[in-house]
């Protein structure tokens, strides 16, 4: 019996699963964005905002994946202890960078665009943020890592991870994992 016609049906059978999964990612992102906006609105100072965001971002972002991508292929030459240290330090930088985008008490309006799926297990959700009279394009990249998690935020075309990647790459070339870690430590120590 010729099974080929049946094979052609497989993509259609898989389609609903993919659609459901993209919808899950979008739903997850909306919950995350609402949580963040609620904190930004009720925070009275920049410091309170950063502190309030830490547990929320920990829930929705994959700091491990973000650090790994930001370091690049050199990551494999990090010992497990170095990887852990780098992730811890980079987490602080990401939270700080993200918190700096908000002014406490301000209430940005976020419009969600149509999500795209660049690859299986990945979703990109374009959003438009209306903030203090200007519009900004913000794209969230999410990955399926045992649940949907944000792995990159691209503001006006500038990817947070790509930006750090350039910097870590240059450090790694100069002095390997140690150079990356000491640069990270220095940056975290600078308020």
């Amino acid at each position: 019996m010729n099974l080929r016609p049946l094979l052609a049906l497989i993509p259609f059978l898989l389609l609903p699963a993919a659609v459901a999964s993209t919808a899950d990612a979008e739903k997850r992102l909306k919950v995350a964005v609402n949580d963040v906006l609620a904190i930004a609105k009720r925070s009275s100072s920049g410091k309170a905002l950063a502190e309030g965001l830490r547990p929320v971002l920990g829930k929705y972002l994959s700091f491990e994946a973000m650090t790994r991508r930001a370091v690049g292929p050199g990551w494999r030459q990090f010992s497990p202890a170095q990887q852990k240290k780098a992730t811890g330090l980079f987490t602080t930088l990401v939270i700080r960078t993200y918190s700096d985008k908000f002014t406490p008490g301000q209430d940005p309006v976020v419009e969600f665009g149509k999500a795209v799926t660049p690859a299986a297990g990945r979703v990109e959700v374009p959003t438009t943020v209306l903030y203090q009279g200007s519009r900004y394009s913000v794209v969230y990249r999410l990955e399926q890592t045992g649940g949907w998690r944000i792995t990159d935020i691209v503001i006006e075309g500038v990817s947070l991870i790509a930006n750090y990647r350039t910097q870590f790459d240059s450090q790694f070339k100069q002095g390997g994992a140690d150079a990356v870690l000491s640069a990270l430590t220095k940056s975290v120590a600078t308020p």
Partner: protein
Amino acid sequence: MKILILLLAVAAAPLLTSCSSAAKKQPDVAVAISDKSGDGKAVADVGADDDDLDEYAVVSIADPLEKVNRGTFWLNHGIYTYLIRPVSKVYRTIVPKPVRQGLDNAYQNVAFPVRVVNHTLQGNLPRAGQETGKFLVNSTVGVGGFMRPSDRIPALANVPSADTGQTFARWGIGHGYYLVLPILGPSSVRETVGYAGDYALNPVNWVTILYGGYAWTLAIPYTNTVRSTPGQMDQYDAAIGNAVDPYLAARSSFVQYRAEVARRAIPVGAGTVTVSEAPAP
């Protein structure tokens, strides 16, 4: 010494402003993002997909002048810290927000030839038409451009901006070398020529040329410079904030941002978000 700094600032003021659209030019790093996991494998365990490590391939812009550029970068950093930021702070303190917003709107409205000419050169006549419509509506109903009633007209709201550097990118011209310009900051050979084009197309700069010699004519470009400083400082801070190497962070942001601007030059289909760079009313 103080006088010297002041002179320097005064000399550079019209330069700084001329690029109100250039102000938007954050660093543009060509981010090559390939999808190596496009084979459809489910990325269930992050630790396992080592192949993905290179997806954020390092942004490439030739930087043979890195040593000089780094010097200029830190010189600029000093000028921003001790001169431009204080000016911007005073301006923000003494000028009420609605007036600042009005001035931003008016200067952006007047700069419409920059956008119309570039949309046209990019072969995007519908957008050139939208810009002209926007200019007419805002100049009349919006009282000389101080308000932006065009935002309430769906056909005229959110028209992507256009500039000369973007046109060159659209024509397929590459960046050439990375350059850090004094005061203006991150640029490239292509974008510097672009700045010159934007400067020449911006009527704000015509007044001084046409009526050169009269002190009052300087008020127009100088006001433009001052009113654009808060936004420029915000962008600078966003680019280098929490950086490990601020020079590389600014370069990366510049290349990425300019790549995004170049992508916006290509008309987008339905379902894609278009973003205007101009402030709302």
